[in-house]
């Protein structure tokens, strides 16, 4: 027998897998197929209205919470176009998973912060940073993508202190972690400028309190209904001018905003998860990992080519964090399966006061030259 013959016999004991032994791979493919629109489907332009780097921070300053529209990701390095996660459909329904999450939430500890106290949370986040380069030579700049745009994924550890009744200043401590390329886009040179730095910032709403439906402070959240149907009405409130699917997406976003960097008591939390299950188009995704690497199961709403997900522990159904995964390359301008946002909610506690670094913060000082509708600039931005 020649060497090829001998080689052919090496490991020939490995059998051809039976069809059912390919179920996990088949499941992941079918999920990707289901998420892909027919080629002839109308395409909506990707919204590029977001501002500069630090979007999440500015939103946080403006509203007092991380009302992030997009989210974070964990990648292990290497080729960003290949290092991707993919939704995976499983047999449980999204509503069933949300019911299980509601059961778990209803048994969680009641923190009961007093109005003068603070809600302290820790999280890890990865969000997209989008910039339009105004330089006319931008197209020749190798660190810019099509049309002089640049994108990357910035990652941070966040510690935030928020007034329980939103009557006082808050404080935010951000540690900047190594950024990731936005899949399909080159990493711009400035993306690493802040890596390793820790920022300590005051959070001042500058007197703009916003309508009640947008509030996420602890005192307001505990006044919300504990009945799922009534909670659903809250999710859909304040939506003047929106119609159809936009209303459903806005409701889904409202639910997400009530979960990160907030304290939502067990009864309202339970109602929120059941209400989220009533939003049309919410679907289940398997195999979702949060920003801290915790394995979870996710429920998702797909919006403009991106699957925006809430993650739950696979065993306990405790809320873990959020994730965003590309499902349509033409809309999201990034390969299908790319993780473009990821968060992990790591801790929530009640604090009696602000941390020492915030002692010198003066209300209003950040607010002097803020244009209408914009947040104050970050200290070193």
């Amino acid at each position, binding site marked *: 027998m*020649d*060497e*090829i013959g*001998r*080689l*052919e016999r*090496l*490991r020939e*004991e*490995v*059998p*051809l*897998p*039976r*069809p059912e*032994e*390919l179920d*996990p*791979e*088949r499941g*992941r*493919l*079918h999920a*990707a*197929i289901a998420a*892909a*629109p*027919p*080629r*002839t489907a109308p395409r909506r332009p990707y919204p590029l209205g977001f501002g500069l780097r630090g979007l999440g921070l500015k939103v946080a300053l403006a509203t007092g919470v991380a009302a992030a529209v997009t989210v974070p990701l964990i990648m292990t390095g*290497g080729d960003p176009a*290949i290092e991707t996660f*993919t939704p995976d459909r499983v047999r449980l329904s999204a509503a069933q998973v949300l019911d299980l999450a509601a059961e778990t939430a209803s048994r969680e500890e009641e923190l009961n912060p007093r109005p003068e106290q603070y809600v302290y949370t820790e999280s890890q986040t990865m969000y997209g940073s989008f910039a339009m380069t105004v330089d006319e030579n931008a197209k020749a700049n190798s660190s810019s993508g099509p049309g002089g745009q640049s994108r990357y994924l910035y990652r941070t550890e966040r510690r935030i202190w928020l007034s329980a009744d939103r009557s006082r200043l808050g404080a935010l401590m951000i540690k900047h972690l190594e950024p990731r390329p936005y899949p399909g886009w080159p990493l711009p040179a400035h993306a690493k400028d802040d890596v390793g730095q820790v920022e300590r910032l005051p959070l001042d709403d500058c007197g703009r309190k916003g309508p009640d439906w947008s509030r996420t402070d602890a005192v307001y959240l505990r006044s919300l209904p504990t009945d799922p149907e009534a909670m659903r009405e809250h999710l859909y409130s304040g939506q003047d001018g929106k119609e159809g699917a936009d209303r459903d997406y806005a409701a889904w976003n409202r639910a997400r905003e009530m979960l990160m960097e907030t304290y939502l008591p067990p009864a309202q939390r339970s109602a929120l998860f059941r209400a989220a299950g009533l939003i049309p188009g919410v679907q289940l995704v398997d195999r979702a990992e949060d920003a801290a690497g915790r394995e979870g199961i996710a429920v998702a709403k797909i919006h403009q080519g991106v699957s925006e997900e809430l993650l739950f522990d696979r065993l306990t159904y405790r809320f873990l964090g959020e994730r965003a995964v590309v499902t349509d*390359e033409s809309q999201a301008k990034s*390969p*299908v*399966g790319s993780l473009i946002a990821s968060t992990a909610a790591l801790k929530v506690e009640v604090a009696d006061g602000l941390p020492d670094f915030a002692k010198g913060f003066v209300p209003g000082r950040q607010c002097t030259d803020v244009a209408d509708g914009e947040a104050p600039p970050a200290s070193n931005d």
Partner: protein
Amino acid sequence: MNPPHPAVVVPEDDAAVMGRSRDEPEAFAELFERHAAEIKRYVIRRLGADHAEDVVAETFLVAFRRRGSYDPARSDARPWLYGIATNLIGRHRRTEIRLLRVVERTGADPVVESFTERSDTRVSATAARRSLAAALARLPAAHRNALLLLAWGGLTYEETAAALGVPIGTVRSRISRARTKMRAALGGADPTALREETTHG
């Protein structure tokens, strides 16, 4: 009850299914049913069962994403799929080498053990296995890819060239050099192989 796949009188070739899947994404599932088992067996033989699931799933996800760039002149999608799988296998090169080294040192093959109950203690088979594994581990990755697509993937030289995206002459040269090394390892004529045998024996 419906059969898993509708019977067709004249089966479409892979290129036709691929073309249809551009506008009907669900048609792509047929290509998985046709080829996934074969691809998975190949991946298991190279990386063991632990890594095969991810590599095979990713192979078909990448193929699905790139279906628009498939060359419609190629009626058989296997070389293309093997090429994608080969790239993904390359990300686990250390795993592949580590498994081959185990075979080289111990004569027992962890890749095979989970699939077989008998413990093969025939000395000659074990010796040949150890030599083959040792030689495979020492090949340059590009040579190992070509050789194993031929021996384990059952691809022709031309298909191997298509899978790897290199000219057929390159494939011939890689396989020729790889075969020489394998032959030397099996014959024990290669002083390098002998020294390794002594060291680890």
